[in-house]
């Protein structure tokens, strides 16, 4: 893989250049260090609503998409609890158009009332489409609320409720923008058949004049250590009851992250995993089971979730699940199954390195985490997880007094 070069503009914008000589398309990836964890608890969903508003015209350019499409480019964006990421793919000969567009909306937005009103409607429909009009769609709302008491991970990126979105005002939008959308709170990656010198002069030309912002250090509330089990039951018109278990774990840069990630693969990722094999296939207690980590920057969650088969009570299913976990904690794992999940990680990492867009995104994210070489080191870090450390992590993270249990109860069965 080609090596990147990195430099800072005077206003604090960090720029990284990732060469790929063969590619006719360039990627411009602009990552802002703001996500739903930075929101006011009374105005959740704001970072994501704001992402929508970034397409509603900027101070000198009334429409964002059209000039880009006119030169063969396309773009999109996403928001998660930690970051908001904007990306453009564009034929390399028209690269400067991307600089023009991205820099103008970093300079300032148009802040139109109509754009805000319409995007509130759009986001409300997105909220319904993804979370309310789907069976089990709001489970993560309940589970996050149960597991986190202080840290802003307690609400999902879409927002706590529709009202928070409907209540957003244009003044809030302006404040949010000037607080977070500043060059010294962003990382720009330019990838493709480009030279570092050319990127540098384009970056200075378009982004250089944007004033830096005051960026006080993030003071996010720290989640207190959980001392006793928590439990919540909700009822809904779903065909099967569902059980969700969440346990606190370390943040993205901690060695424990790699162990927890491999652990969830061993427990509940695919047909070859322990819990799926035993409880879905052999004993048919569950219709399906999954284990995964939330993968957040700050300390996140290990989640184990399963839908209970018809004819099995929730209590019985939950007992079987926890008994199986206890048994696995006593027995430990084999070297072979650790190797299996490491091999799966190796393939997944190789897959994440194929598309230029993903390479640019990974470079930006690991730079934000403080280590631009981080993605390159992932495989090594995965490889270093020993069987002992894995088993120790398993016992440390998953124990009865540390669990958060959400029972999503079907009113028609179980």
């Amino acid at each position, binding site marked *: 893989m080609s090596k990147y070069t990195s430099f800072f503009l005077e206003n604090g914008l960090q720029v990284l250049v990732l060469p790929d000589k063969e*590619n*006719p*398309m360039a990627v411009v990836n602009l990552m802002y260090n703001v996500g739903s964890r930075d929101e006011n608890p009374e105005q959740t969903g704001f970072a994501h609503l704001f992402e929508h508003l970034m397409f509603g015209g900027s*101070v*000198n*350019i009334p429409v964002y*998409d*059209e*000039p880009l*499409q*006119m*030169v*063969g480019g*396309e773009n999109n964006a996403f928001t998660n609890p930690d970051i908001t990421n904007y990306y453009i*793919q564009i*034929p390399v*000969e*028209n690269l*400067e*158009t991307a600089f*023009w567009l991205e*820099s*103008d909306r970093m300079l300032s937005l148009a802040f139109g009332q109509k754009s805000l*009103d*319409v*995007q509130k*409607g*759009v986001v409300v*429909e*997105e909220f*319904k*489409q993804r979370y*309310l*009009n*789907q*069976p089990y769609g709001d489970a993560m709302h309940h589970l996050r609320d149960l597991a986190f008491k202080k840290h802003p991970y307690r609400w999902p990126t879409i927002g706590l409720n529709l009202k928070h979105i409907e209540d957003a005002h244009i003044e809030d939008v302006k404040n949010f923008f000037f607080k977070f959308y500043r060059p010294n709170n962003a990382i720009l990656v330019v990838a493709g058949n480009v030279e570092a010198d050319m990127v540098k002069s384009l970056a200075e030309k378009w982004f250089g*004049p944007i004033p830096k912002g005051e960026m006080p250090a993030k003071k996010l509330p720290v989640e207190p250590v959980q001392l006793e089990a928590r439990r919540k039951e909700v009822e809904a*018109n*779903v*065909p*099967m009851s569902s059980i969700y278990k969440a346990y606190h774990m370390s943040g993205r840069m901690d060695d424990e992250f790699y162990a927890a990630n491999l652990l969830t693969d061993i427990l509940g990722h695919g*047909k*070859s995993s322990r819990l799926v*094999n035993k409880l*879905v*296939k052999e004993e048919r207690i569950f*219709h*399906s089971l999954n284990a995964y980590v939330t993968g957040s920057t700050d300390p996140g969650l290990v989640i184990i979730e399963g*839908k209970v*088969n*018809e004819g099995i009570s929730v209590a019985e299913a939950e007992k079987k699940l926890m008994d199986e976990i206890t048994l696995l904690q006593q027995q430990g794992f084999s070297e072979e199954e650790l190797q*299996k*999940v490491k*091999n799966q*990680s190796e*393939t997944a990492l*190789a*897959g994440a390195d*194929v598309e*230029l867009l993903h390479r640019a995104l990974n470079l930006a994210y690991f730079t934000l985490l403080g280590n631009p070489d981080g993605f390159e080191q992932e495989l090594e870090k995965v490889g270093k997880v020993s069987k002992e450390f894995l088993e120790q992590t398993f016992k440390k993270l998953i124990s009865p007094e540390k669990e958060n249990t959400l029972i999503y109860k079907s009113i028609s069965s179980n």
Partner: protein
Amino acid sequence: MLDRTIPPASYSLKIPKIAAPEITKLSNGIELSTYLSQTQNLVSIELVFPFSDLTSENRQKDNYAFRMLLEGTVQKSSKKIADSISFLGASIEISHHPDFETISISCLSRVFPEVLQIMKEIWNESVFPEKEWNTIRETTIQQNAINLQKTGFMASKLFRKKMYGANLDYGYSLDSTLIQTFTPELLQEKFNKQKQTGPALALVSGWLQPDALKSLKDWLNEFSNIGNLAQKSSLSLPDLKGDIYWEEMPDSQQTTLRIGKWTIDSLHPDSSLLNLVLEIYGGYFGSRLMGNIREDKGWTYGIFAQRVPNTGKPYWQIGTDIKGEVALEAISEIKKEAEILRSQLVDEEELDLVKNYMIGQFISSVTNCYGLADRYKSMWLNGQSFERMESNLKVLENATQPQVLETAGKYLSLEDAIFVLAGKKPD
């Protein structure tokens, strides 16, 4: 002083010459096509098995027979198969389309020889255990129960049924009735009958060492023959007359809308222009429908129009999940936008924008061997040649305002479409 109101200079796009794969025709009829790139350390292989009996009963039997391949061999249990594949960090996935079954293999290039051994074993020595079949059947039935609560699923189900009828696999959606009639013996028998029939297309992208490629070819050479894609001209399908159908779901918070209309196939001379018209209408973020329904009114998170090729009879469709109260009003707006395209010249700037956007998309889709393979697969399924694809791109590049108007006039009338809604019916 930098004037930010003026866009930087831009350059017209050059459509790259698209590389054809290396094609080897085996004596049993299998086409082995490869896009190899030594810089890759992954390999992806798609095996496409066409079927010509398109009734849902038969095609669903094929579907589940193929899915049972991963559930046991003479030597290995279902668990052992899953463990062996996972241990190599590989995946072998089976997917169903009314015209074909696909087996997709992907792994690190260096472990391909071992993955191929597993693939050969599950094909040559497959057994269909009762217990594993019961799990698949029950899981499928429960999945269906979840789907029945989704407006998107229910709308698509009714839509396909109205277009194709439930007897054809194109019209079939997952339900619990048909699958109850299948037994492992029946599925095994179905599979055994076609065990000698190989994939019509084996498409390789990524990297394989020459000896690994030779092993793949040796295996493919063991098949006796191949299946063919069905001849579609004989299908008798209903005329559509602008009818509205409701799937009432009183508890839903949104309504799913699907609109469909029969149209031309990819080999028709107007095909490229129709793609352009549909792109303007509802194919991209700045389309007429997105502009009206999402960006002006805020009624939806998204709305799209697209052509659906390689199905029994090609159609184009519109889909959206929309605020329930305005679903019928949205239909009027959708009709209105179609009529505008059919009666007024598209603005020159808009036309240029959409053409450039589509060309950019095209360039973007073929930047590496995997993208090239995807494109080739769809050409292969549509029976499209490289010459045809290139001439289609030329037509797109040179398309004029009157051509757009004429094409919209021919193909965009919604008089003979169907309108399917799933959600809470307004009073």
